[in-house]
Structures are given as C-alpha cells and as structure tokens.
C-alpha cells in the first residue's frame, strides 16, 4: 500500500485523486483505535505483572491518548465542517444539534464521552467497593463501551472512505477497513479472555465463546470490504497484533509490586498465544468467493458458520495439546508466563486442562450450542457487513 496522509485542511470525504492519500481524520481515528487496544493489552500485562495501578501509569496514558485523539480529531472535523466547510463538504456529513460530522466521527465522540464518564464513576467505585475487585464492573463496562465505540467509529470512517473511494484510494481504503476490523477482533478477544484460557481449550465453553465472538467480525468483513482476502486479512491483523504483544512485552523486566505473590516474575507477563482463527478465516474467504450471489444469507450463515467452527475445532484442539506440552515452553509460544496472583496449586500452572463439561453428553451439547452460535454470529455479521458496505457518510 502506498499512501500518504492528507493534510488537515483537505476535503473530508474521498474523491477521485491521482495518488492514494489517507484522509487525516481516518488516520487519526485508526491511530486512536490502535492506541486503545495497545493500551489495554499493556494494562492487562501490567495488572498481571506489577499489579500496582495508578491513574497515570503508561498503559493508562496510552488508552487516554487513544480516547482523546479520537474525540478531539472528530470534534475538529465537525467544527471545521460546520464553521469553515463548504456546502459540498457538509452535504457529505450528518447533522447533529447544528453540527456536521461523519457518522463514524459521531460514534467516536460518543465513545470518548463514555470513556470520560467512566473515569469519575470508576474512581467512586474503587472507593466504595475496593480497587478493581472485578474485571467486569459497571464502570468498566461503560469504559469498554466507549472503547468499542471508538473502534467501531474508526471502522465506519474507514469503510465510508472505502465505499466512496475510486481509483488509487480503493485498495488502501479497503486495507485500512480490514485493519480496523482486526483491531476490533483484538478487542473482542481481550473481552473474552476469561473464556479463552489455555486450560479451557478442551471444553465446549471455549468453542461456544469463540463461535460467538469471531464469526461476526469475519463475516462482516467478508461482506463489507472490497479485498480479495478480507477475513484472512482481519484474522492476520489479530494474529500479528497478539504476536507482537506476546513477543515484545517479555523483553521488559518487571517485578510484582502487590501481594500476595504466588509466582516468581522477572519480566512483563504477555497475553496468551493467539488463537488459530487465521486458518478458518482463509477457508471463509475461499468459500465466500464461490457463494452463489442470490443465495439466502441464512444458508450462507449456516455454511460459513459451520465451516468456521469445524476448522477452528480441528486446528485449535490439537494445538492446545501442543501448547500444554514442554515443546511450547519457549519465548515463541510463551506458555511459561503466569500472572503473579496465580497460585501454584492451580491446574493451569501445571499445564493441565480444566474439565468444564461434567460429561461427554454435556460436551456434545455444548458443541451443538457452539454450532448454533457460529451460525447466528455469522448471520449477524453478514447483515452488519451489508449495512456497512452501504455507508457513505
């Protein structure tokens, strides 16, 4: 991709241009979206390694930068279009309380406000109920909604650019859209962390959660981006993003600053190795190309959803055995990392699977439910993707 960033004063939406140039506000929100997901990955590592939290720790600052860049850049776009834009500029935008801005921009601004709202709420929550007793608390949910909104807003802005693009802009716009999807997939995988632990990989709950989380994004990308390998590109962004965290974080020495400490930790604890979503994503791309154009999306969802789950199960299950084996205890697969608060009496510390299904019948019932989730998630993704393929503003 050869692309430059258009200056601040450039027109907001794309028009035919001789060289591919990323609109500055799309670049800004994608940067913000990246900051937020990088900050959260860092933050989780911080909580697993150092433990001691502060408002200004660098992981938090990275998240704030993401939130502020998204809110301020979109705010600037709206102000400029409203007070200094041409009627042609404003005709490409959406009006809200007298201001004109892109749809993705309004979503990003909403996300920034949600993040801002969560700050005093979370502060009170800490004082009332203790410092981060739960990962998923009401104020953290407000924060997560804000973050998701920023990432979704960035995606909508990238897709609006793609959908209006012609000529040289088309390919970078589609690639950046897939990148925005990949960031959302990274975020979704983080939110599902408690279901995606290595020791759960031989339980139906793991596959149910994966069937719920991943197909919706892959199917939406299939439908909305103009790339030849959309699902593969999205899954590759997730895989690469996660691998960077797995490989880079342990390079930094760190020790726990909170007790009780149950693990001997000398460096930042990285997240787990990425799930093998890339393999079923390649299959989805190959399959979607061969889909008859007039076939019902429900049939598409059944085919794509079941293929996703079948292939994911076929590759992740044996890969889980490998991850539990001594062969994976190295810097590449990074399975020797445990948070400081994990007691050494736990099964996961001893590389043992946790049997979450009481018996085989329960496991098979769980997989049946996973198949249903995969189909519904794919169907939702196709519908969402169809709407996003049409976004113009």
């Amino acid at each position, binding site marked *: 991709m050869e692309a430059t960033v258009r200056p601040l004063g450039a027109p907001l939406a794309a028009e035919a241009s001789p060289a591919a140039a990323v609109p500055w506000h799309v670049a800004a929100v994608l940067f913000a979206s990246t900051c937020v997901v990088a900050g959260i990955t860092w933050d989780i590592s911080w909580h697993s390694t150092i433990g001691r939290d502060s408002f200004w720790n660098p992981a938090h600052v990275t998240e704030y930068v993401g939130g502020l860049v998204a809110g301020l850049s979109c705010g600037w776009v709206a102000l400029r279009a409203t007070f200094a834009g041409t009627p042609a500029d404003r005709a490409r935008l959406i009006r*809200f309380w007298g201001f004109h801005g892109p749809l993705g921009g309004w979503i990003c601004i909403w996300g920034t406000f949600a993040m801002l*709202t969560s700050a*005093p709420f979370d502060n009170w929550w800490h004082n009332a109920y203790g410092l981060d007793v739960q990962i998923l608390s*009401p104020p953290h949910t407000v924060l997560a909604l804000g973050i998701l909104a920023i990432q979704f807003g960035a995606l909508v802005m990238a897709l609006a650019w793609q959908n*209006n693009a012609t000529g040289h802009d088309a390919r970078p716009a589609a690639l950046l859209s897939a990148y925005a999807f990949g960031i959302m997939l990274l975020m979704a995988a983080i939110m599902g962390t408690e279901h995606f632990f290595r020791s759960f990989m031989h339980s139906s709950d793991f596959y149910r959660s994966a069937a719920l989380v991943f197909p919706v994004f892959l199917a939406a990308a299939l439908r909305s981006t103009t790339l030849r390998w959309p699902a593969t590109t999205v899954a590759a962004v997730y895989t690469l993003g996660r691998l960077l965290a797995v490989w880079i974080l342990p390079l930094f020495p760190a*020790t726990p*600053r909170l007790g009780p400490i149950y693990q001997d930790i000398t460096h930042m604890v990285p997240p787990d190795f990425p799930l093998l979503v890339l393999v079923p994503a390649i299959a989805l791309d190959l399959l979607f190309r061969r889909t008859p154009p007039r076939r019902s999306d429900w049939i598409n969802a059944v085919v794509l959803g079941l293929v996703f789950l079948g292939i994911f199960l076929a590759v992740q299950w044996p890969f889980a055995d490998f991850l539990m084996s001594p062969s994976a205890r190295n810097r590449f697969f990074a399975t020797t990392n445990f948070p400081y608060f994990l007691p050494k009496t736990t099964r996961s510390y001893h590389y043992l699977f946790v049997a979450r299904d009481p018996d085989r019948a329960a496991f098979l019932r769980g997989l049946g439910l996973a198949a249903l989730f995969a189909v519904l998630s794919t169907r939702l993704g196709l519908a969402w993707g169809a709407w996003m393929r049409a976004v113009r503003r």
Partner: protein
Amino acid sequence: MSPRARHLAALAAAGAAVVAFSGHIGSPNTFFDGDAGPYRIHVVVQVPPVVPGLAEITVRVLAGRADAVTVRPIFWRTGERGSPPADPARPVPGDPRLFTGQLWLMEAGTYNVRIDVRGADGAGAALVPVTAAATRRLAMQAPLGWLLAALGAFLAVGLVWIVGAAVREGGVPAGEAPDPRRRARARVAMLAAAGAVALALTGGRAWWNRVDAAYRRNLYRPLAVRAHVDARAGAPTLTVAIADSAWTSGRMTPLTTEHGKLMHLFLVRLPARDAFAHVHPEPVDSTTFRVRLPPLPAGRYRILADIVHESGFAETLTDIVEVPAPGAATAPHDAAAAPPTATDPDDTWHVGGADSPPGALQTARLEDGSTIAWRHPPLVAGRDAALRFTVTGPDGRPATLEPYIGMLGHAAVLRDDDSVFVHLHPMGSFAMASRETLQRRERGDTGTGRWFRPAPADPGAAPPMAHHAPAARPASAIEFPFAFPRPGDYRIWVQVKRAGHVLTGVFDAHVGADPRGGGRAD
C-alpha cells in the same frame, strides 16, 4: 440471610479466605510505639474502609538520626516470600523526623507491616500488625451523582440519535436527502435503540444493586457469641459460646494466646458503667469459654471479649449478660451444670465511676491509696496524642509500676454508646499475639501456598525483631499511643500493678470534633 449463608457468601467473595479485622470495635486504625533497632518510632496506620484499598502510614522517629524509612506489608498467608518489595516512606517537608507512605492492602486479613529505618545510627526494623477488612460502603455525593446522571442521559440520548442517523443518512450518497422509507426505518430503529438503552440501564441498575448487596453482606462483623451467667454452683459463672457458623465450620485458623490467655474479657455494667471487670475465661471446648465471675454488683453487663486467631487476626466479640445478685439462682441454660471454675489470679474488677469530671487534669484514687493522674490538652477526634498517666504512691512520691499480664499497663476505652471499644497497651493498639504468630509463620514457612503453618511457639527464642520491652523499664508513668476515632463521651479504665496489686483508675473523657473536619461525628 442466616449466619451460615452470610459467612458462606463472605468466604466465596474473599476467594475462600477468612475475612479478618482488627480486634477492636469502631477504631480500626493501628498505633505503635516501639523500637526499630537503635531508633524509637511512633507509627500510625490508617486502614482503608474497603479492601482492596490503600492504607496511609506515618512513621515519626522519636529518637535517633534517621535518613530513610521503608514500609512493607507482609500478608499472613504468603509471608515475606510472597510479599512485594518495600516502598520508601517520604519525609514530610518541614518535619525531617516524620515519614509518610502508603500500603497496598489487596486482600482482607492480617498483615505484618515491616518498617525499616536507616540513618547515622545504623539500621533497624520493627513489625506492626495491621488488619484489613471492608467496614463500610462509601455513599455517593450528590454532585457526583448528578454529574454521572447527566453524562449518562447524554450518552443514552446520543446513542439513540446516532442509531437513527446511521439508518436514516448513513447510506445516502453525498448531497442527497434521505427518502421517506429511510426516515421511517430510522424512526423504528430509534425506538428499538431506546428500548435497548432502557433495558441496558435497567439491567445495569440490577447488576449494580446485586454487587452492592453482596458487598454489604460481606462487610466485616465479629463472630456471633451467646453468653450467660449461671449462679447455681455458688459463685456466678460466665459462659461465652461462639455460635457463629464461620467458626463452628472449622474454616478459620485456631485461636492463639495473647499474653498467655486465649480470651481477655471485659465486663462493663450498663448503663452507668460503674462496674468493670477484666477476666480471662478458660476454654471448655473449641467453642465454649467459662470463667468464675468476681463479686460484681447485679445488673446488665456489656461483655467485650478479645481473641486472636493463629492467622494473626484479632477481634472483639460482644454480647450482653445479666449478672444476678450474690446468692440468687438463675435458670439453667443447659443440662450440664457449669462446673466450678478456678479464678485466674490475673482477673481483676473495679466498682465505681470516675473521681473527677473531664478536664485538663484528672485524677483517680486507687485502692491502695495511691493516685493516678491524667494531664492532657483538649481531646479532639482523630488527633494522634498519647494518653499519658502518672502514678503517685500514698507517700506522694512516684510509684514504681510492675508488669501486669506482660505489660506495664492496660487501658480499656469505651464510648458511651458502646460503638467504640479499644484495649490499649503501651506498645499500641494491636494484639501482641498477632505479631508473634506472624513472626512464627516466617520461621515455619513452608512456601507461598494458600495456607500457612506457624512454627511452634518457643518461649526461649529471642524475637527476630528488637522490640520495646516496657516491663524491663521501671517507671511511674505509662503512655498509650492512641487517637479517639470519633467525637463523644468516653470512659477509660487504666489498669496498673503496684506492690503486687492490680489497681484500676477510672476516667471520663469528652472528645470534641476536629475543626478541620477529622473525626466522624454521629
């Protein structure tokens, strides 16, 4: 909710850890006066009302030339090996002898705070036991409530509007107006979004309420006890039974002795507080304690029983009993009559109120004709000021005090509504057994597991940390480090020993509110 269910919920919330708390009522802060090697220090730890939370610690170096102070909370279950490294306590500008820091207390239970002092006089360390537990839920202040409500409303309205705009205009090419079909679909989408937002808010509210209810259920409460007095065998006998399922289920660590006694029990006659006893019930079985009462006047008594668990966790159990008139028979409470119990020679009692009204100088006449005096500035809630008492013999000369139950003196402080009770020693407000058991835990360390095994008590072994030994220093004055937690009226019983006799002086104290806002009024 039954006590069993309540405690099961507490155990579940604490990750099967036992909820622990300070051995006092209404006065959670810890005070320490003692030595850290060559330095004499005064330490105050203000524990947070919620856990996990941050405790504030101040260390004043009273004697010695200290340059640096570090503080480190060591959790009872994981010991030194499982505790984070020490943090520096920062010197307070303008007061080079005062150092302040924060302690991150992430789990409910007992901590030994290790205080290291370094300077021109060398290095020294002291251990101060601190217990942490959730004791209250912060209320939301109105301005914050309104701010959050306004932001929440803005977000809700904004979300509905964005959904409408997305459906109405999102797919419309530049310069074109949305057609009526799009507008109609947008209205439906906005209605659906409004419904979803309402549902999310309702669900969020229910979630919040659930978290709040669980939190309130798990607030610390002392173990429930049932006490009664039986006078059939002649001398009235007090029986205290721990009736709480948290105890009878066997999930808590056993009790350990404090100054050689498993239970230190105070009786105070209600409502005048004109009769007081400090007795030491003996265990009959793992839940029941019994003691022969001294000849107290009949009436209703508040009992306050201090116990310490092997985890270092100290708590005060409380109940109310009726003490009958001497010779009166009481109805039997159980089939087995209370066996006669030998009286502990350290059991003491005192009948009578304060000799002088609250004031800058108060005195009390002791049983042997000596006098105990308390001179103090106006008492203010939250202000750290030692309670200093001096004892003068009948001849008018300073008396020589002897150790009583391992200490130069004991003080029991009770607020007039029983909402505050503290048992103080010259070393501070904590149970000595908490510190000793945690020190033994280090010697018996079997790893950073979920449980611990203290080494057997070894009375001959020197304590690992040098500490202040008040009994070794003959004195006529005694000081208790303390700050009254709340304004109000308090009664203080000070117990000292002179010429082989335990003497009790009674004082009343009126504690005012801190004009700067410290100390919580009713």
